[in-house]
Structures are given as C-alpha cells and as structure tokens.
C-alpha cells in the first residue's frame, strides 16, 4: 500500500479504524478457511481433516 494511503487510514476516526480491524479479521478468517478447504480437497488421502468442514 502506498504511504499516502497508509497515512490517510491512520487519520481516520478511531471508531472507523476499529470497524476496519473487524473487517480485516473476517477477511483473514475467510482466507484461512478457504486454504484449509483447498488443502483438504487437494490431499484427500493424507489424513488431513478440517473439523470446521465436517
């Protein structure tokens, strides 16, 4: 991300930043869940088990 954009985000009101942190957390969990699903389907015989997908 460009420094100008980072500075702009830094100047947002705290309440707005906290909402964005919540969005980042949700996004990172979605990405993680997708990776786990993909790993699980790519290696079905590996014994890899995703408890959240069952």
């Amino acid at each position, binding site marked *: 991300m460009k420094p100008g954009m980072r500075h702009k985000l830094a100047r947002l009101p*705290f309440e707005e*930043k906290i909402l*964005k*942190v*919540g969005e*980042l957390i949700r996004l990172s969990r979605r990405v993680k869940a997708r990776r786990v699903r993909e790993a699980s389907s790519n290696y079905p015989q590996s014994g890899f088990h995703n408890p959240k997908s069952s």
Partner: protein
Amino acid sequence: MSDEFSTIPLADVLRAANELVSAGLIEDYALGGALAAIYYVEPFTTYDADIVFVATDKTLSAGIPAIYSHLQSKGWRVEREHLMVNDFPVHFLAASGLTEEAVRHAKAIVYEGVLAKVFRPEYIIAIAAGVGRHKDLARIEQLMTQTKIDNALLDDILRRHNLRLPNS
C-alpha cells in the same frame, strides 16, 4: 477458542474497565497493545484487546481473581488466559514499572460515548522497544512514520527505563 464475534466490542470492554475502577477493583487502566497503536496508525489485524491496569490490590495476585469474578458475574466468559466479551478475547494485564507509568500518563479519549484512556505513542514505542519481537519493531516503524511523536518525551522514557530503539 470461539472466533465468531462480528465486530470488536471495544465500547463494552472500556465500559467494563470503567466499572472495575468504580467498584474499586482497579485503580486505573488504559488500552494498550495493538489496539492502542491503532488509535494512532493505520488499522491492522489484531485478535484481542489489552487492558493494562494499576492494581488496587498490591498483593501478588493484583486482584485478578476479583476482576475475573466481577466480569463473569456480568456475563463474561473465561477461556484460557482470556476473558471473553461477545466472543472477543480481552487480556487484563497488571501494570508495573514502564507500563504503570504508561497508564498514569495515558491519553483520555471518548470511544462511542465511553470515557477511556489509551497509551500515548511514546509509551507504546518504548514498550515495543523493550519487547523487541518482529511485530513490535513493525509497530515502532508505523508509529514513527504515521503519527506525531514527542521526541523529547520518548528519549526521556527510553533513558529512564534503559531502553534503546532498534538501529540506534
């Protein structure tokens, strides 16, 4: 650990900390850790809140059992080392030395109508310099570039606590 919270319930956390002060269970507190840094810099991912408190109870337990039972009576859950509010993990950390000074000099804020305090950036930097993990060094860099730092204050804190910034 459950991870189903949809938004960070920071106002609830701060309200609860204010109640602990009113109940005399803690003397003072401030928001520390990543969320304190985010007050000054761009938002980044963090998965818990750190409430750093000055204990009323000066014994070794720092009054933590009473804090836990008070919050549990308000519906908070205990999950490993965290207290959970709306499934969001919160660390209650007893202040001492540098962190106690950070609480006493914290900046007063209002968050969603709740009065609270947040560590000043100079103290966040000093604490991060003392811990020195990769993420602490990244936090120092963010604070140095994204917010106004009182360099005289920072130098004074670092000198008194025998700390150094990385690469200095």
